[in-house]
């Protein structure tokens, strides 16, 4: 059996970190202490049975055969039967217990890490790379799962087997053992080298598999472009080179085991030959029994097996340890938008007040400075301004996706930091600009806004935004699976689902990031109508990309350079002749040129 595994240099744990990982794991396993102890006991017993067999053969030969005592021989046989049964039972229990403890640990770890990930705030996500976060829950947990499923019992029992074999062999005949120890230094040296080389080889193979697969993926996804430019031969040549490198890398890895395995085998059989020769000599002298030599012969050929297994498993253990370390670090990341002790529910309705609010990422410069405004219940505020000016940061403060670094945000007079998270998310809902869909049905996707909503409520929400007819005519209706993040739906349809979510959540305050990109002509009008219906009667903060939206808002705020530079109604601001007025002028001019074609029709 061959288990490839590896850990990169920067992930390798130092002693302190390793100890921390062990301590933390022990803590998490405490509720399972009885099972862990039971599993350990079974592994110890099972290891014992592996050695007991040859030992009984020795007893049978020395006392039964050479002692010409049939009773002793029979006793050895009976003993062996007991050992075999014990081996069977302990092995079975051991596998079951370790799996149960290990898999349960993994299950709880997965749930716990994910829950923690979900609790972490937007600033955390803004800082982190998505791929890294996902790999915590996938490759890091998987390397641990691999260890539990394949290696943990083997690691423990091989380590035990090695130690106990050495002890028993020494007890039976320390002289002969001493002779056999000549094989140990080359085995240790070879194993250390093997462990290092195979680790490097594994990492190399893994990287090359990764690049071959991404090349493959690109070759398939981009096949139309390749054919359009008649580049097939070049691409095939490139792929073949990478694939050839992968083959070479595989073979380097095989070559490492091809020299290492013989060393182990030779150590086993070489010491067997030694035991036979030297041991036989001592038998002649009467210093040793034949049974002892037989015991050595039967044990030695397998003595170095554990060394080989251990050096392979060592990489697996290291990579699992590194994975756990990263997981515990993630679990240790503080949640920066927490619910305060004694938090209160927000009132059902109320004004939104932003008072002298500033925000900065970490120690960075303020991206929003000293912003104050008040949005009366039921009125609409449109935020306009260039990209990166701070519009969306301001919107995020209103929804408490971020906490302001200075100042306060209040709803109905309550500081958002004093509100329960449940009531906060119930009152204030954010609709991002892209209609992001999750795997599942259209119904599931709408229901995301309120887990307990009935089918009728989901349908009502779709009706409320005028999207029910659009989806109910599909062959599977609302139960249509949106595959691969909604690739079967158009951009406009995705937005309709997104808007229906907001309708289902039915919040007092809606924070809306308007879509920048144009939609397919078929759904454009539908989406516009849906937005209009949704905004009816709610307090709205909209990040406006269309001046037609700001035209209809009760209030317009122009954000630039992290400050609220203008605030007023559309007409006031146009009349004032400031930033907004010039934006508006550009728009009118632009609209005029592009619509000339349509105007003629």
């Amino acid at each position, binding site marked *: 059996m061959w288990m490839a595994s590896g850990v990169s240099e920067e992930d390798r744990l130092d002693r302190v970190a390793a100890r921390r990982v062990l301590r933390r794991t022990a803590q998490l396993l405490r509720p399972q202490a009885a099972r862990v102890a039971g599993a350990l006991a079974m592994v110890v017993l099972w290891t014992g049975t592996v050695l007991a067999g040859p030992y009984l053969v020795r007893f049978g030969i020395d006392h039964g055969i050479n002692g010409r005592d049939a009773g002793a021989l029979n006793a050895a046989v009976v003993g062996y039967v007991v050992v075999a049964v014990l081996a069977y039972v302990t092995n079975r229990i051991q596998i079951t217990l370790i799996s149960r403890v290990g898999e349960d640990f993994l299950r709880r770890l997965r749930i716990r890490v994910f829950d923690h990930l979900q609790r972490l705030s937007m600033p955390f996500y803004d800082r982190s790379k998505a791929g890294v976060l996902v790999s915590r829950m996938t490759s890091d947990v998987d390397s641990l799962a691999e260890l539990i499923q394949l290696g943990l019992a083997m690691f423990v029992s091989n380590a035990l087997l090695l130690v106990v074999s050495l002890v028993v062999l020494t007890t039976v005949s320390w002289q002969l053992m001493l002779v056999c120890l000549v094989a140990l230094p080359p085995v240790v040296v070879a194993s250390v080298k093997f462990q290092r080389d195979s680790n490097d080889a594994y990492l190399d193979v893994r990287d090359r598999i990764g690049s071959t697969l991404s090349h493959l993926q690109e070759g398939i996804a981009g096949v139309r472009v390749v054919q359009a430019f008649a580049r097939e031969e070049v691409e095939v040549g490139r792929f073949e080179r990478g694939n050839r490198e992968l083959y070479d890398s595989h073979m380097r890895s095989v070559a490492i085991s091809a020299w290492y395995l013989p060393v182990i085998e030779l150590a086993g059989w070489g010491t067997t030959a030694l035991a036979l020769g030297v041991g036989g000599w001592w038998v002649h002298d009467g210093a040793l029994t034949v049974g002892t030599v037989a015991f050595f012969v039967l044990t030695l050929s397998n003595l170095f097996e554990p060394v080989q297994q251990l050096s392979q498993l060592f990489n697996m253990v290291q990579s699992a340890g590194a994975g756990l370390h990263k997981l515990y670090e993630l679990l240790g990341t503080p949640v920066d938008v927490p619910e305060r002790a004694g938090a209160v529910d927000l009132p059902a309705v109320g004004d939104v007040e932003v008072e002298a609010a500033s925000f900065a990422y970490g120690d960075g410069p303020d991206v929003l400075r000293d912003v104050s405004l008040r949005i009366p219940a039921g009125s609409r505020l449109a935020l306009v301004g260039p990209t990166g000016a701070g519009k969306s940061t301001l919107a995020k403060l209103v929804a408490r996706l971020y906490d302001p670094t200075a100042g306060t945000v209040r709803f109905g007079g309550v500081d958002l930091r004093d509100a329960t998270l449940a009531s906060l998310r119930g009152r204030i809902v954010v609709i991002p600009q892209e209609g992001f869909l999750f795997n599942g049905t259209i119904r599931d996707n709408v229901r995301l806004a309120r887990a307990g909503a009935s089918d009728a409520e989901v349908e009502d929400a779709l009706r409320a935004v005028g999207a029910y007819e659009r989806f109910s005519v599909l062959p599977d209706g609302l139960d249509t699976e949106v595959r691969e993040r909604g690739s079967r739906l158009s951009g406009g349809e995705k937005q309709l689902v997104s808007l229906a979510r907001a309708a289902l959540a039915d919040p007092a305050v809606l924070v809306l990031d308007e879509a920048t990109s144009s939609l397919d002509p078929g759904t454009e009008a539908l989406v516009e109508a849906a937005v209009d219906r949704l905004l009816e009667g709610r307090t709205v903060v909209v990040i406006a990309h269309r001046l037609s939206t700001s035209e209809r808002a009760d209030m317009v705020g122009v954000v630039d350079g992290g400050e609220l530079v203008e605030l007023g109604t559309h007409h006031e601001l146009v009349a004032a002749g400031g930033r907004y007025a010039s934006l508006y002028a550009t728009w009118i001019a632009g609209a005029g040129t*592009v619509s000339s074609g349509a105007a003629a029709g």
Partner: protein
Amino acid sequence: MADRTSSRAGWRLILRSVRARRSGLILGVATGLAWTAAKVSTGLIVKTAVDQGIQSDDTGALVRWSVTLGVVALFSATFTGLRRYMAFREARWIEADLRDRLFAHLQRLHFAFHDQSQTGQLMSRANTDLQQVQAFVVMIPLTISNAVTVLAVTVILALIDPLLTLLALGSLPFMNVLATRFSRRLYPSVMGIQRESAELAAVVEESVAGVRVIKGLGAEPVQAARLKAEAEDVYDQSMAAARTRARFLPGLELLPNIGLIAVLAYGGHQVLNGDLSLGSLVAFNVYIAMLVWPLRMLGMIVAQSQRAAVSAERVDEVLATAPLVKDAAHPVPLPTGPSGRASGICVGGAVAFEDVRFGYGRQAPVLDGFDLRVAAGESVALVGATGSGKTTVARLIPRFYDVESGRITLDGVDVRDLRLRDLRRAIGIVFEDTFLFSDTIAANIAFADPDASQAAIERAARLAGVHEFVCELDDGYATRIGERGYSLSGGQRQRIAIARAILADPRVLILDDATSAVDPTKEHEIRDALSEVMRGRTTIVIAHRPATIALADRVVLIDSGRVAAEGTHESLLASDGRYRQVLAAAERSRRATAAATAAAGNGGGDDARRPEEVAR
């Protein structure tokens, strides 16, 4: 054996691959047999050493046989390594070779095949399926020497004591059976774990990617519940695998013990009675241990071979798909103009559609009775509602698909009579959805001609309006784009795709909605550049924006698979109601974009980073 008959093509593929590597595999088998010889003789040497050396007090014999054992052990160990290396060398080669063939074949398969295939599935053909084949092939030479070992040991032991042999090895065939069953039972659970883990990973991925939606709606509990369900599924599958292990592994270890007990019980008494030598008893013990792994592997190969055949069948399915669009038996060379090319202006490029009928698969035809003539050097704008067939027109010229009836000619030659390579080299196309490769910007622009000079690349880049922004990047044209590289905006990507087509310097340039994502404030620059590129070159433009349409000499309105009207932009605008409708519909959806850019100030709409779009 339903598996076997249904995967006959799979077996044939494996057989062909194995036959192609037969010399290496024969060498592997030979190494394996040398291993067998050395391995099998160790037991006999131990027996002789015990009997003649130890039991009969012959020191000379003892030394002789111990040294022999040491020497044989050296051989056996060497061959252990060698047979493994040889087996993997051939198996990995076959895997790599099939992967090369798959990739090369996929690169040549027609568009219609790719339209119907999912990338992920094709990927797993070249990945997991080939691994299954490899795992089986590696076992072939190993299994042959293993089987010979089992046979040789059985014969040797039977010669020593037939009854004891029966007792010692009698239980071992069950090991074979048990190993087969174990492998078969475990496989679905292992696959199940992989499947459920992938589903769990999908929940994690979308939760991270969609975190704004989740936070915005406060939907954390919903996702947490979904993840919990997936974690439970992974747990269930893992426990099913653990139960299978718990059921079979102890049994697999018990069986050799039964043989060892039988040897000690019956063999021990035989030695007591003087009917068996002590050396033979020890040899029996040694041999039983020797057979444990070969027998287990014999059990595994049955299950593995079936999996490999099913996998190979799937690989064969792809390889056996014949490319529908291929070179004619006797291709006609592409006619060159009388003077080839003069003063940088292309000669040739006349395109004609003659009564063309075409539909995708078995669906209703998209084009029916379609006639269009584009003179060499002329530029034509195709305008039509969504689904009217204008993109199809563009895709038929380079033979991405073949027409059902009628014909398409390039400079008077039916495109099906041209060498595919010549045809496609003569045509430059910019697709609506831009695909760029994870490579440098220079390599992406020089896609049509990897040997293009830096000057040529920069000229194409200037014309497409990318030169300026590329120069602002730290690494300039050497900047890597794609998954692990720099993220481009949709407009930047489109402009690089235009540069790519310009560099190809084609007779016919096809722009399929190629400027839809380009920031309107920059569009006029590109329009100027395009008009430069289009001068004297046959160009087919699919567009909605009046300004882009105006670039063309002639406008063709396509409606339900036919040419509905043609003329200049102005004349159609004045005379044709359908034309006005189509433009008005496009205009409505575009108004938003124009306003968005105005509101965002300095061209933010175009340059907003949307990394998820890159290299899709």
